[in-house]
């Protein structure tokens, strides 16, 4: 009987916990959970466009997924407040994929059940490749804000990218170093069990040769060994590297920065878009990131009206400076708006018809957004835009040209 009572008590406590959860998610407008409920910010009258978002809202890559979901939410609410697309409101549903291929396909299928007409996502590369096959077979239009591998769009005419691709990032970083840091001795530390990291490293090293950059050391790590980098850092230091290229996500990068600081080793750290997010990482000492260079298409200190408005709005709502992923998510919605308006699509069209119209528009239109102006898309789905080098100063991004 004791056991039975214990069980009953456990049940009651769990229910109480749920009740707590429920209330919390209702009173906290900043959680992406809130944006998942279709009624948020959308009057229920009449038909509306349904945009799905797939990305890691929980798990180790959650910063990326949440940034995209937040950027999308801001864009959608702005559009809805201004009268919608072609007079129709937009509904958006973000679904969590924990950056896992299987879960991502599940999330995508879940959105298809919901009646999604256009997919924004998936956010990370591996899941995006898995989902892209489904997208291609289903003939639904997909625009990924940040999955940067060429494999994501290769051979799929209805999958487009908003971010520049890995080869562009790798060779872009090498080109930038070649022209701005001549005679630099570069060390590369990358994660060799990660598609994204390995992909950028490959193109970086290939382009470094053309740029006469000397790669003095290459260190690798895996997801299981990303807690300690003293070996790689010591090796880089003894190889005489004065620039360390980090084509990795921000969590291991934060460890590298802290350990290099503890060693008293002060090379220039150079990251790519995965480094974006380091400034909003919880419990991270911002002074460690001082002077880190990041290759990103978006800089929150830009003074154009669009960026200023977006950054202010994002700050107000979520209490942090938006990173590139948020800007990519925001741009995705506006690019879709422009294309849908040009094609004159309506929500009662099937997603196949919308897809056909979107492919036509995206391959012919020019789009100005937060992450670049005059963007065009090739028929392969890759975007043309220029990466911008920024430096972290006093905890914010500053364009490398404006840096002190």
């Amino acid at each position, binding site marked *: *009987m004791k*056991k*039975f009572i*214990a*069980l009953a008590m*456990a*049940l009651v406590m*769990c229910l109480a*916990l*749920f009740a707590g*959860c429920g209330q919390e*998610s209702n009173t906290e407008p900043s*959680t*992406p*959970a809130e944006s*998942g409920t279709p009624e948020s910010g959308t009057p229920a009258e009449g038909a509306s466009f349904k945009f799905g978002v797939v990305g890691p*809202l*929980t798990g180790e890559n959650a910063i990326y997924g949440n940034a995209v979901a937040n950027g999308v939410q801001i864009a959608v609410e702005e559009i809805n407040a201004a009268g919608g697309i072609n007079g129709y409101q937009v509904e958006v549903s973000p*679904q*969590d994929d924990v950056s*896992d*291929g*299987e*879960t991502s*396909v*599940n*999330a*995508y*299928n*879940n959105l*298809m*059940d919901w009646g999604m007409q256009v997919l924004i996502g998936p956010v990370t590369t*591996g*899941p995006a*490749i*898995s989902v*892209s*096959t*489904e997208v291609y077979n289903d003939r639904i239009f997909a625009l990924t804000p940040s999955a940067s*591998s060429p*494999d994501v769009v*290769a*051979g799929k005419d209805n999958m487009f990218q908003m971010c520049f691709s890995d080869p562009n990032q790798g060779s872009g970083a090498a080109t930038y170093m070649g022209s701005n840091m001549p005679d630099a001795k570069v060390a590369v530390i990358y*994660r*060799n*069990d*990660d*598609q994204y*990291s*390995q*992909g950028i490293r*490959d193109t970086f090293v290939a382009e470094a040769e053309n740029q006469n950059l000397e790669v003095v050391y*290459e260190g*690798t790590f*895996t*997801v*299981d060994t990303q807690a300690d980098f003293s070996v790689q850092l010591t090796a880089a230091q003894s190889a005489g590297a004065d620039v360390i290229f980090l084509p990795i996500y921000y969590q291991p990068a934060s460890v590298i920065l802290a350990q290099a600081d503890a060693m008293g080793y002060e090379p220039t750290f150079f990251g790519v878009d995965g480094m974006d997010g380091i400034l909003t990482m919880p419990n991270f000492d911002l002074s460690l990131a001082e002077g880190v260079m990041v290759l990103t298409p978006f800089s929150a200190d830009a003074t154009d009206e669009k960026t200023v408005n977006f950054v202010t709005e994002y700050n107000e709502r979520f209490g942090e400076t938006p990173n590139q992923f948020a800007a990519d998510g925001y741009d995705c919605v506006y690019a879709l708006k422009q294309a849908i308006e040009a094609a004159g699509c309506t929500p009662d069209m099937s997603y196949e018809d919308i897809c056909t119209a979107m492919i036509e528009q995206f391959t012919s239109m020019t789009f100005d957004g937060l992450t670049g102006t005059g963007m065009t898309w090739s028929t392969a789905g890759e975007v043309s835009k220029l990466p911008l080098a920024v430096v972290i100063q006093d905890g914010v991004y500053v364009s490398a040209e404006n840096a002190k």
Partner: protein
Amino acid sequence: MGKKIKSAANRAPRLSKAAKIDYATYLGVILAFAVVTVLGSQGMLTRSFQGQLVPICCYIVMAISLNLTVGVLGELSLGHAGFMSVGAFSGIVAAMSFQASIPSEPVRLVIALCVGAACAAVTGLIVGVPVLRLRGDYLAIVTLAFGEIIKELINCLIVGHDENGLHVIFNFDGSKTISDLGLTENGIEIIKGAQGATGTDTIASFTAGFILIMITLVIVLNLVRSRSGRAIMALRDNRIAAESVGINVTKYKLMAFVTSAALAGAAGALYGLNFSNLGASKFNFNTSILILVFVVLGGLGKIWGSIIAATVLTILPEALRGFEDYRMLVYAIVLILVMLATNSPQAKAVFSRSVGGVKGIFACKGNKAKGGAANG
């Protein structure tokens, strides 16, 4: 894994009950397949559920095969996902290599599953031969390491195929890329090292998954109920007593372990061919533990329990999407509640009362006693 020897008198009537349970298991799987197929053809299933069918089949086979090692043989294996990984990547290589020469998808799928099973069986033999001779929990330690080693090895693996055959390089120092394979223009890149298998033709189907489950059930249930199976269980229950009556310890342990590895390999091949992109990191320690959770939750040695647990626990995280950010929390709580409920005599009594009628048809009254023995 100390277990008391059950008296022969106790065992004799249980076998016939066991046979009934076995037939009920086959019947249940066939019925479930029929129902899902009919509902699917009527368009009554959600996309979300249909998308999960193949992974569910894979996880069921994984759980059944691990149950053979953990529940029947009584050895703890913490690297079952490693065998799945071996099967998945070898299966993908096989399926992609024959893409040009064998246009029929089902035939390629069968070849891939056989190759996956064979490769995993060989790996299981390599791991099992030295380790299964030892006493104690060494298998757990070695399989744990094995799972990690496989992951690192596949990260180094670059494989491509063209008309000249298969090209394989091991990229140990991280400096080689897919271009070092020297593929001709018509060549296909199959595994790109850390980037995993990308661009895989997704030829897996639910029917193939169902057939794989049935084959697995036939193999495992027949093995368990055979003379060899009784020898394996005797080893689990008391190794010294088993040795004293002349049972070859290593032989029977290897038999169970390699069978288990081969089935996991086949499941891995099916899983790998269901997604166009698969990285080695998918088959990490967490996946091994997930499979172990299916087995423990379903009941050690209970095959039907593994099937139900694998199905429910695969669907559950998706079914809980309504909880948004809290879904994994809810998942954990449900898991704990189920564990508590299945171990509580009161809950069992309530359960058996409520489904007494149904149970009467399929199973037997002594089920509880069997459950107790298997869980003990």
